């Protein structure tokens, strides 16, 4: 767990450096300060389970078996990336190998989709759980409600982790909901909803494990709200001027990595040992990504349908007379 916390943080920091150097194509959404949620919950899943990450869940895909190279090649839109340059950042997955489902930008969509994966598993007689994350802001979407509505009456093995990092872009959670705890939304569906400390990786693991196993045992969908704080802006262009003074500093004291080091009783030597391993992995990923080619423009027409003859079309001005 500690290794993955450090790796996630290091990849994020390195990605921001690359972004400053104009090497990152498209958006970059930091997960700093929120790593414990991805990692604690991913550790609580079984290998056979399904999971859909969101923008701030690099940790989840790493724990599930995707590599640092996958992350970096995606950021740089390279031909060697999991989507071969088709889609941005962590929008990738591999159902068969890692159980990770590629999410899309439209927030909320993965709640119904993961409900469907739980449904599919049940129809096939498999005891897999489907888990997804959702931001505090995205709990205001219709998809959140529709997905959980269907999942609740169908008693599907779905776990929805609300990653309450207090802001949706610039909008504070108080402008999304009048609830103190977003887990109270569970009442609308008649399902269990609990709230916990998202910056304590062991608490995250413990609560996630409980939700996952309750869902697996037939208890239906579960909502787990984990409180945390988005330590950077929504994306690099955002200086977080809207965050009240002192709040970021207060949350820095609750940094999940520092807290876990204290629990583990790690001294400088242990930290440095893991730091060195992490640095090597990040270095390899960046080098690989930088040396990889961009995809060939010709590939853009492939793979829309199974039948690749449907899309390509030669207009008359490109044909021989």
């Amino acid at each position: 767990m500690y290794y993955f916390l450090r790796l996630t943080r290091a990849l994020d920091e390195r990605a921001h450096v690359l972004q400053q150097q104009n090497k990152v194509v498209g958006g970059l959404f930091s997960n700093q300060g929120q790593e414990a949620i991805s990692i604690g919950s991913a550790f609580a899943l079984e290998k056979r389970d399904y999971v859909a990450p969101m923008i701030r869940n690099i940790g989840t895909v790493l724990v599930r078996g995707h590599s640092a190279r996958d992350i970096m090649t995606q950021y740089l839109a390279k031909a060697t990336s999991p989507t071969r340059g088709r889609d941005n950042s962590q929008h990738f997955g591999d159902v068969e190998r890692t159980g990770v489902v590629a999410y899309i930008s439209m927030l909320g969509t993965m709640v119904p989709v993961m409900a469907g994966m739980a449904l599919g598993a049940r129809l096939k007689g498999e005891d897999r759980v489907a888990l997804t994350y959702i931001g505090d802001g995205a709990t205001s979407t219709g998809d959140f409600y529709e997905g959980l509505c269907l999942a609740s009456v169908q008693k599907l093995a779905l776990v929805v982790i609300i990653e309450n990092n207090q802001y949706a872009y610039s909008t504070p959670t108080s402008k999304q909901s009048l609830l103190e705890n977003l887990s109270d939304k569970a009442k609308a569906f008649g399902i269990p909803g609990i709230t916990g400390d998202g910056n304590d990786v062991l608490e995250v693991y413990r609560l996630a494990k409980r939700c996952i196993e309750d869902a697996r045992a037939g208890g239906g969908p579960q909502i787990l709200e984990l409180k945390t704080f988005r330590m950077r802006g929504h994306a690099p262009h955002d200086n977080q001027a809207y965050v009240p003074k002192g709040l970021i500093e207060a949350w820095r004291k609750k940094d999940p990595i520092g807290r876990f080091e204290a629990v583990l009783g790690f001294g400088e030597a242990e930290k440095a040992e893991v730091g060195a391993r992490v640095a090597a992995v990040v270095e390899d990923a960046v080098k690989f990504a930088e040396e990889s080619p961009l995809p060939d423009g010709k590939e853009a027409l492939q793979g829309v349908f199974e039948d690749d003859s449907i899309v390509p079309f030669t207009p008359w001005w490109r044909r021989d007379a």
Partner: protein
Amino acid sequence: MPELTFLDAISRGLWEEMEADPTVFLMGEDIGAYGGAFKVTKGFLEKFGPGRVIETTLSEEGFVGAAIGAAYTGLRPVVEFQFIDFIACAFDMIVNVAGTSRYRWGKGVPVTFRGPWGAGGRAGPFHSRSIEMWFAHSPGLKVVAPATPSDAKGLLKACIRDNDPCIFLEHKHLYRRIKEEVADGSPAIPLGRARVVRPGEDLTIVTYGMMLHRTMEAVAALEGRSIEVLDLRTIYPLDRAAVVESVKKTGKVMTVTEDTRTGSIAGEIAAVLCEEAFEHLDGPVVRVTSPDVPIPFAPTLEDAVLPSVKDIAGAADRLLRY
């Protein structure tokens, strides 16, 4: 051979696919004991059980998303919209999640979205829409619109077996009005191919859905004229070659769609012909369509909007004389 209505043919097609392939299952509102709003799935719950006939909550975005998720686990969901108009509520899931899925990360979405479609039933603006071009315009989706019982059965089978998302449109005005002999166990009919309903030399009329039947009436009224009628059957992928081939023979083309004018498939056909068959055209490509208005409720208003047999015959006659 049993004589089947359009509705029975769809129902039989669905039934045979479910019997043949255990990964096929149904989702939708009121499709279980009640058998669906139009009774397409009557008797399915008793035969296939609640595991394969899943009655959903009233949440289009929710159950469409769930169908996509179930498809990711290797199943082939068939989703019924109570009226196809409500597909608007699930637009995001279909165009953004399903339509882009294979392209983004290589995961095909073998889901069939089906439902009663089309106007003529005095059902007003929200139970009559032509929704085909919303999806034909959106990459990664196939759009199918049969006009006869045998095509409906065969094309539905093809949609269910297809590894990409298909939208299957069932003209509800045809449900119980037309009949045809369709063999049990009839084969799938390939998607993306138009059908020459009637050969001709002097004019090609391209149409689909209920308008095929109005076109055939109009052609009958224009007795003695050599008119070729093409039923598109699939809106996307469009059978460009069939349209171009026909025009090479007739030199004149008219399209008839119930869909509203701007952005209907008629415009795409006209554009294809301009690029592909310009030198074969002996007249303007004429579009007979509904005007750009919501489908109104009152019979007089609805009739004023939809292309009538008279409209079609008049346009064809004029173009033939051009």
